[in-house]
């Protein structure tokens, strides 16, 4: 290398080392400067709850920037966007740890919470089953049910579809058990094209809900009770149906054909309103009014579950749930769901307070 090139390179290396040395202390200074900025901002935003008691002192220890550690949650793909939004806001308010939210289906979430004991919070779009409560007790956990919102399960088709506007629960049930395989069987006016079904898989709470409330009703009763097991078998064995716990896969599928039908949480429909349309069930469209009035047949509760021992040992989990309940009603409509009825919400708040003050 010529002398000029070598000296030039030496200058570059020396300058970069100098900058790195100066940059490091500057980098460590920045977070110190930021902290005081967030702390004064926090008290003005957090205690705005409509229903949560405003005692600053006992709950100050649950402020987002006062707790540390990680929060591990997993479960329903329906609750996923809501929990994710809450986690984002929680971290914006100064929480230093990580909040992980995994979308693996309500069944999967309970599996991890009650059998493996790996998660702190289970997200669910259905109530916990007795067998799952038993499993939790076997590992020393007593699940606390916290209602966070309401979902209007959306049955969707592509916006390109121009012949279906409403389906009755019976028609939907018959499509899902495979009794109707082409659209002209549903209604003689529809074209004779194959019905393509996109459904959440067996681990999903959405799947369980659809099986119990629609598919089981399309089968003859067994011992005077709804044949849930048989309904599950029929839906899982449906010829040509595509299953996925990831609702985005279902969105892709339904988008791709005017003869495809799928179902998932309302938030995924809201996100894709340009390319999808929600089918009215029994002539009732899913929206704020029909859910509030209790008319939409496929409205269902959204829950998160935790345990008092976890809340005591890991204050960051209690802080997260406290923050969740404080802020969910302000954000839930934006995420795409509906607020829980006031009485249920208050009961959840009381349950949290009781667990935390033990």
């Amino acid at each position: 290398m010529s002398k000029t090139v070598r000296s030039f390179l030496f200058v570059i290396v020396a300058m970069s080392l100098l900058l790195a040395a100066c940059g490091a202390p500057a980098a460590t200074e920045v977070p110190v400067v930021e902290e005081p900025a967030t702390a004064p901002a926090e008290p003005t935003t957090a205690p705005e709850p409509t229903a949560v008691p405003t005692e600053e002192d006992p709950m100050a220890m649950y402020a987002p920037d006062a707790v540390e550690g990680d929060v591990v949650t997993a479960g329903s793909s329906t609750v996923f966007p809501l929990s994710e939004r809450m986690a984002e806001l929680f971290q914006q308010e100064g929480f230093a740890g990580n909040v992980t939210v995994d979308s693996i289906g309500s069944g999967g979430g309970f599996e991890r919470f009650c059998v493996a004991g790996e998660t702190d919070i289970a997200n669910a779009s259905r109530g916990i089953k007795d067998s799952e409560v038993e499993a939790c007790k076997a590992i020393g956990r007593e699940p606390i049910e916290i209602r966070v919102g309401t979902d209007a399960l959306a049955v969707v088709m592509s916006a390109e579809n121009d012949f279906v506007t409403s389906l009755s629960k019976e028609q939907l049930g018959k499509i899902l058990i495979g009794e109707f395989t082409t659209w002209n069987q549903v209604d003689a006016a529809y074209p004779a094209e194959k019905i393509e079904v996109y459904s959440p898989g067996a681990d999903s709470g959405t799947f369980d809900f659809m099986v119990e409330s629609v598919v089981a009703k399309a089968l003859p009763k067994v011992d005077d009770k709804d044949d849930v097991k048989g309904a599950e078998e029929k839906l899982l064995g449906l010829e040509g149906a595509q299953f996925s716990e990831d609702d985005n896969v279902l969105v892709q599928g339904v988008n791709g054909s005017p003869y495809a039908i799928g179902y998932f949480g309302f938030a995924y429909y809201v996100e894709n309103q340009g390319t999808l349309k929600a089918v009215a069930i029994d002539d009732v469209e899913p929206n704020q009014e029909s859910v509030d009035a209790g008319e939409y047949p496929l409205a269902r509760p959204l829950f998160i579950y935790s345990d008092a021992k976890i809340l005591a040992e890991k204050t960051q989990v209690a802080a997260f749930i406290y923050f969740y309940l404080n802020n969910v009603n302000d954000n839930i409509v934006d995420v795409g769901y509906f607020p829980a009825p006031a009485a249920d919400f208050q009961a959840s708040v009381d349950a949290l307070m009781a667990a935390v003050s033990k």
Partner: protein
Amino acid sequence: MNQPELSKKFRPGESIIQSLLFLAGILSIFITLAIVYELGKEALLFFNDPDVTLGKFFGTTKWQPGIGQYGIWALVSATLTTSAIAVLISLPLGLASAVYLSEYASPKARSILKPILEILAGIPTVVYGYFALLFVTPILKSIFGDGIQVYNMLSAGLVMGIMILPLISSMSEDALSAVPRSLREGAYAMGATKFETSAQVALPAALSGIGAAIIIGVSRAVGETMIVAVAAGSGPNFSFNPLEAAETMTGHIARISGGDLSYNSIDYTSLFAIALMLFLVTLVLNLISQWVVKRFREQYE
């Protein structure tokens, strides 16, 4: 009289290096045996389940362990279809590009084209998967109209073919370069044209290497997970129609283990049975490739 020491001098450094290298070699065997043991142990739990019989496993064509259906052919058919499409695409194109790069291309052209081909090999498979779903499928939809579903085996197979193209091309090119110049020069001396030399002299001589390349490409296609998980479909479907959606063995393992399974449930152990099948298929393909290489090498050298 001092007898000179004629035996081999003991060098401790060499012995240490030799044993370390021996350990490295043994490690790969050990890992393979460990994998087979783990797969076999859990797969045995699957086959020991009273509901599962070998007859159901190899004899039926519906796969839904949750409701007692255990026909592996539903998944194997999709694996075979996507791999076949991938090989049909990559084999002619790969061989043609290998012949071009080794026989016809000027050094400058080769220096530009070869790195670009290597880039194709470096693209992450999940990117390929979304490329298949979001770019190739709409093109196929415009060709086939409503006859093709959004998730289908054809677009996954096509993109898999593009993915293994650089593999087949570079291995075939290496095989072609290894053909001795004397063979080619003999052909030219006899008056053969360039194409006749490439196709009828060089290619047959390199056949063992090309055969190995094909089998490695097929093994890669069979084991490919992300492309088929994203683009081929998520419901087991016994069908050889590439316009339909179907789930391959690898895609099924990826989807089901992405949800959550209780240990010792039938879904969990069935995954190991599928993985064992996959392992066996790959093993059989490798054995075939070794046999092909051995056999054809005898004839041309």
